[in-house]
């Protein structure tokens, strides 16, 4: 799918999946779209439906109640689909590891291709992360 990915890299459409986050990464993701950071200059757009998405932006530790829905979203997304985990929560669980309501294995629910750590990551870091993804897609 090399040729396809190269075309994908020109204009990535992202869908935002908030799986029990603390809202902060979500706000920073929205911040990327606003005039100061303006990520649309890279062709990246936030879309309203997962059926249009090339990349899923996942934020938050995935709790047990939302896990089946997240899995369903991932299955509904058209292939190829890339998942970017935003923030410390998808990578390490942040401070919520002791909770009774977490899914033990996040990787089983949704395989994450790229982690952008930080609590929350600065918008610059998110842009750097997405640029890395574009690099990978270009091969």
């Amino acid at each position, binding site marked *: 799918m090399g040729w396809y990915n190269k075309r994908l890299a020109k204009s990535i459409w992202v869908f935002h999946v*908030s799986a029990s986050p603390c809202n902060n990464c979500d706000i920073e993701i929205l911040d990327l779209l*606003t005039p100061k950071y303006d990520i649309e200059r890279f062709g990246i757009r936030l879309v309203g439906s997962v059926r249009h998405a090339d990349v899923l932006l996942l934020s938050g530790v995935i*709790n047990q*109640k*939302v896990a089946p829905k997240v899995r369903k979203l991932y299955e509904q997304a058209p292939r190829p689909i890339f998942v970017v985990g935003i923030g410390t929560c998808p990578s390490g669980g942040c401070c919520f590891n002791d909770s009774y309501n977490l899914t033990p294995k996040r990787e089983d629910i949704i395989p994450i291709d790229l982690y*952008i750590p930080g*609590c929350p990551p*600065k918008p*610059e870091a998110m842009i750097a992360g997405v640029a890395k993804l574009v690099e990978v897609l270009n091969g």
Partner: protein
Amino acid sequence: MKLSENANQIPVGPFHPLLEEAEYFNLTVEGETVVDIDMDIGWMHRGHEFISEQKTFTQSIFLVERICGICSTSHPLACVHAVEDVDNLEIPERAAYIRTLIGELERIHSHLLWLGLAGHFIGYDTLWMWAWKYREPVLQMFEVISGNRNHYGMMRVGGVARDVDPDRVKALDNILDTVDSKVHMIVKAAMDDPVLKSRLVGVGVLSREDAVAMCAVGPTSRASGVPWDVRKDEPGDAYGMVDFDVIVQNGGGVWDKLVVRLLEILESTRICRQCLEKLKTVKGPILNDVKEISAGEGIGRYEAPRGEVFHYVRTDGSNRAIRHKVRAPSYVNIPTFSASCKGIPIADALITLAAVDPCYCCTERALRVKGEDAGTIDFLTLSREKTERIRREIHG
């Protein structure tokens, strides 16, 4: 509830393009009119109260900060108020001003954020881009004070963690000038906007009786004519020493909530200005040494941008709480939907849902990097460079 024959149910969520967070609403409609609304929450529940009981007081401040990214000062502030309330501890004057400054900056940024989102919800993206553009200087002020745009980590039991040195006060003063002029401009523009006015006046009215019965708090109840504000009722920190007004409107609709929030932004800039003036003259320690917390119960509260944040801490004399209860403002504001959404057209329902500025992460309260990722180095360098740059701008 028994449904009539021509009633339909419209599910909204859990993942919906308009809702920032995963949330599920079940609207029962007859024709175009909403007759009933049911909410299913729990998609964000992370068990904060359970985790907090296993952490020491200082650790749980870090934890409650992560209840919600937008109220990330209100929760720690209410939490330290609760712990201080157990022993009636006092904090140094300088720390009080720093706390109030951060709390009020957060109010400005949260209200601007809501204004932008409300514009987005009614399809008025110009307002969204505008409000969020002018929110950036506020985040920059946070970066100058604490080094992070959100999650500031400033609160401690007995004071604050970091001081604001004189150079920074001067820099903050300069940024506040920008914020002040922009905020005045955008507030004036939004209040005079014929589009917003014709879309929002008289939509989603919450009556005063309903607001009192549902125990609503914050701008939601103040827009319905209930004048309570924790900052005036129980002035903690520096709120007793600064001058400000409580904004009350009587209409109860979405427009009144907008007006309350917009005018509160102006009040907040006034408070920030007074705090910065005081920080130039008031010297002294910023953190009292707290050796131990005795056994007892404490109630701490703070007027977050969305209303009263309530923390209850019960201690047994050790260094951790045996019960830590958190009640976020949205927890009591969201049930008001059942009063304000009934009988309105479905097109107005979403903006009414958004008008209380619901924060589901709060409501449900609910770093190990995998492998050696080269991306982390990039991020660290970027972040350090930015911090360096800001430092240079301040000192140079």
